[in-house]
């Protein structure tokens, strides 16, 4: 099994589109950091204006942790596209390339094949989140150093001591990896349905966009639907930056997201097993 996963990983990383995600993050993260280096003080000043009316404060609030938090906030909405770009190609790409029939004539069961492709997709997804973590945290700490993290919510402001932040980021990136795995699983499922990779990529993004919009709008009818949309739980990494942390809510979100991963994979495996391979 590990050998097949290695082969699938080799195939993934042989395609240049795989590197689009890594390159996009490698370009975008330093751009945000340089922009914050130039104008970060003004942004922070604007963010803390309400606080400044009543309080005087000192300390390095514009630090690597704050930049990483802002980047994670912004990019978790856009990374699904980079994930779908590869995960949507995993099965449908074989059909497009005309290698489907050749692939399943190998002495490996269809289930093993689909499982190894799925694991390879999940490994790619996790590597992408790890790359984001290394770049935004690593580069952020090198450029801005460490300090207390200020988290501004609609009605509360939380400032975490500098020694109380790093572990929150590790868990938050872990959670973000799980969220992105749901996206990868969904793209993988769509990939099992069609013969062209463009369809799964666009369909996955369409689902994510529609679900995210419904999750964000506070209208009664949407609020009734929201608990059933996996996108409502994808931003739960923010719960790690709360005081006290609602671990029950995080565990619930993790279970729901993991359930979606299993369901999408199970359905993809079932479809692939029964699929008529004609190309």
């Amino acid at each position, binding site marked *: 099994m590990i050998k097949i996963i290695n082969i699938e990983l080799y195939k993934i990383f042989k395609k240049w589109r795989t590197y689009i995600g890594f390159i996009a993050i490698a370009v975008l993260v330093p751009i945000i950091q340089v922009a914050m280096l130039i104008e970060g003080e003004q942004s922070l000043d604007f963010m803390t204006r309400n606080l400044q009316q*009543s309080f005087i404060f000192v*300390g390095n609030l514009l630090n690597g942790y704050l930049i990483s938090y802002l980047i994670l*906030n912004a990019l978790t909405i856009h990374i699904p596209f980079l994930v779908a770009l590869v995960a949507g190609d995993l099965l449908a790409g074989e059909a497009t390339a005309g290698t489907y029939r050749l692939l399943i004539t190998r002495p490996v069961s269809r289930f093993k094949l689909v499982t190894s492709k799925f694991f390879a997709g999940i490994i790619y997804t996790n590597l992408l989140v790890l790359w984001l973590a290394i770049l935004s945290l690593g580069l952020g700490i090198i450029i801005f150093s460490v300090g207390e993290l200020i988290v*501004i919510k609609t*009605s509360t402001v939380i*400032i975490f001591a500098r020694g109380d932040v790093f572990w929150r980021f590790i868990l938050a990136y872990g959670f973000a990896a799980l969220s992105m795995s749901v996206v990868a699983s969904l793209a993988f499922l769509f990939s099992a349905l069609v013969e062209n990779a463009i369809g799964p990529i666009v369909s996955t993004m369409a689902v994510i966009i529609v679900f995210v919009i419904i*999750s964000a709008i506070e209208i009664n009818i949407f609020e009734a639907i929201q608990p059933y949309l996996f996108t409502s739980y994808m931003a739960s990494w*923010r719960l790690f930056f709360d005081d006290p942390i609602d671990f029950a809510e995080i565990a619930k979100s993790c279970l729901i997201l993991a359930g979606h991963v299993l369901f999408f994979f199970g359905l993809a495996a079932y479809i692939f097993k029964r699929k008529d391979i004609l190309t």
Partner: protein
Amino acid sequence: MKVLLILLIISFSLTSSFSQKKDPDKILEDVKKTFNEVKDYVVDIDIKVDVDFLKVPDSKAKIYYKQPNKVHLESESFALLPKEGLDFSPLGLLEEKYTAIYEKEDTVDGNKTAVIKVIPLEDESNVVLTTLWIDEAKHIIRRVESTPKIGGTFSIELKYDKSGTKYPLPASMLFTFKVDKMELPKGISGEYNEKESKSKDKKRSTTGKVSVTYSNYKVNNGIPDSVFEEKKK
């Protein structure tokens, strides 16, 4: 505003004229004299913040003070203080023109104090009314209640035991204040798909407390002005 102020002064004068036995200006002058002994100081502080909407870790900082009203807060980590709680010296307030009214005698932490109301007379003053509880025996301020033009009323309680200095400087301060709750748009807070706070408490303002413990006073050792200029960068 001025008419209102004059009416306020007259009403205070009428209500207290019968009981007024002590000269408030003399009491305040004694306090000024006592505080004037402190030309400058540096002190280490421990800050604990207790505000409903603001969660801040306990912090350590250093306060630099130089007469008449130069103050600089310095910390290696994040430290936060209410603006009005940074400087407890009465010199800033008493440098302005004011009317003082002796109100009554009161006891604060077992110490007999004279309660004096101070009404600034200058239009530029940030304060509408300040009440001071003054320990007449030691000529120090034990409690302050102040109503600024902008913001809610705040009170400061000062304790002087174990301050480790012969000067009239406090060992601890409890700052109590009313502050408006923050409501930030979701764009700034980043909570695009987070639900509103489950809190049912929709009051616009809340009471906050900040306690400060002072230690390691270094008094009248001289502080260069550059320390305070740095703050204004």
